[in-house]
């Protein structure tokens, strides 16, 4: 009884704050929490007309269908490997660029180059799709124009399964390295200047300063960003893969990720149940890996854990 009374009193005292929170609470309830209940579609033989509740149960058939199709392994592997490549390439570029940008060049130089690096973040993936076509298309692409001008044979880059991983990794870095560089720049700016002065007096050269002061100081930022990206490691960048690769079935073995697979199952083959099952599989994997990695980090050093 006391509890209800307390809550009533709190409610009264905070009614304005609660009213201010209400739009966002309702928004997230409708668009995030209600769909969570909708994951029962994964266990149903979904009939669009009948709706979620009247559709018959299917047990684990949707999952069986996905895992038996042979696609499960391919799309999961592609998603994880691409994301690992993105994390490694992007964070290496972000950290090195941030370190160099704090040490090298005039203020003007830094401003111009930083603007250039951040610009891609503002460009939509549709436009990046146009870039890829412009550069790599067989007949008139920039690359083949260049090859022809130096007397080489034109290359069919877009039809070649092997070249796509480089294109996708490059444009992913292109899109988000500038963004991450700024975050690391902020972290580096926060380092105490006296550390560098002291190291300088002690005779440490610039490489030693970077390895003994800068890198250890940005470790917390690195670990938080790493944890966040590990939490997304089973989520493919749908926009990038869909816009760059398109619907070329010949390339799917090398370029299909979970998100593009779910999208096609839903929009093209209308396999609602199976698509929902794959979505659930993905969400559970993401949640599990984030919890595990957060737990591991917490055991090693609790300061670095997300929660």
């Amino acid at each position, binding site marked *: 009884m006391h509890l209800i009374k307390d809550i009533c009193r709190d409610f009264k005292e905070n009614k304005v704050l609660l009213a201010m929170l209400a739009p*966002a609470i309702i928004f997230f309830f409708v668009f995030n929490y209600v769909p969570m209940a909708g994951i029962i579609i994964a266990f149903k033989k979904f009939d669009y007309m009948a709706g979620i509740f009247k559709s018959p149960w299917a047990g684990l058939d949707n999952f069986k269908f996905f895992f038996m199709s042979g696609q499960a392994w391919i799309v999961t592997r592609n998603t994880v490997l691409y994301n690992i490549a993105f994390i490694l390439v992007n964070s290496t570029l972000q950290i090195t660029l941030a370190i*160099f940008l704090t040490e090298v060049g005039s203020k003007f130089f830094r401003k111009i180059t930083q603007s250039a690096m951040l610009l891609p973040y503002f460009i939509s993936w*549709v*436009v990046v799709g146009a870039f890829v076509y412009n550069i790599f298309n067989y007949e008139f692409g920039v690359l083949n124009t260049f090859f022809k001008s130096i007397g080489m044979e034109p290359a069919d880059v877009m039809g070649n399964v092997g070249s796509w991983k480089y294109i996708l990794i490059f444009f992913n870095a292109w899109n988000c390295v500038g963004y991450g560089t700024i975050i690391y720049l902020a972290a580096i700016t926060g380092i105490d200047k006296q550390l560098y002065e002291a190291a300088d007096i002690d005779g440490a050269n610039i490489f030693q300063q970077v390895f003994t002061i800068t890198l250890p100081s940005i470790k917390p930022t690195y670990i938080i960003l790493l944890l966040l990206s590990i939490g997304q490691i089973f989520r493919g960048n749908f926009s990038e893969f869909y816009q760059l690769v398109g619907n070329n079935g010949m390339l799917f073995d090398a370029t299909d990720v979970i998100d593009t697979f779910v999208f096609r199952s839903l929009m093209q083959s209308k396999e609602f149940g199976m698509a929902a099952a794959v979505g659930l599989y993905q969400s559970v994997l993401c949640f599990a890996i984030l919890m595990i990695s957060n737990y591991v980090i917490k055991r090693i050093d609790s300061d670095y854990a997300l929660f």
Partner: protein
Amino acid sequence: MKINKCKEKIIFSLIGYFEIIVFSLLCIIPMILVLSGSFTSEISIHMDGYSLWPKEFSVDAYRVVFAVPDKIVKAYTVTGLLTVFGTLLGLFVCAMTAYALQRPQFKYRNFFALYFFFTTLFSGGLVPWYILIVKYLHMKNSYLALLFPPLIAVFDIIVMRSFMKTVPRALAESAKIDGAGEFRIFIQIFLPLSKPALATVGLFIALRYWNDWYNAMLFIDKTTMYPLQFYLYIMLTSMLQAANSAQGAGITFKVYPSETFKLAMTVVATGPILLLYPFVQKYFVRGLTMGAVKG
């Protein structure tokens, strides 16, 4: 030893300049190629291909893009209105939420913070979300399906909340003693003091609306309702429509600018972002830095 240190500094600088310059160039070259290509004549592209500077200048591609201007004007209008209304609405809701979540005397602030944060950890996936919007909220072919999904993001709330935490607590307390209610404190004290955060988060939201094509692909079938980026996508993938539109307008070409048309379309759809970029960039940087440091 002094000389040694100098040598290392030079090597370090050389590597630094090299990486920064190469990466910056790689970032802008695709854009220059598209821009230059869009102003090149189609024949020159067929003969020599693309180059960093147009070999044979031509605006044929732009004539096709604007041959039937109503469609592209319509797409611009849809995106423009969505961006303006969505950003204003999203910003207001985000700021209110962040304000309530940072009030120290609000007992349930941690509970609600978790309520929002949890949605980034676990989600129902595409299918239930899609079915909810189409079958139960009946938003297929409705602008609401384009307005709602990009409206509020948890990351925006976190950035806004971290900024509002830096507003001196005494300001709110003294206003309270003077009899101001929570909503009034929010409007008259916190909003004016949070301008940098509002600019940044506003930019995040505006960018989500401007670059959105995904929600249109899922929920919009009517061509007259397409937002800009999705219209661009349709134009890039189906040349037939573009050819028809030019013929309909009675423009004839020696060589139809099919390749350069795509590039001109891309430029037209990206233009405003590139023009605004120098002005909004600093807010963006500031906001990212705030979110990162205090996260």
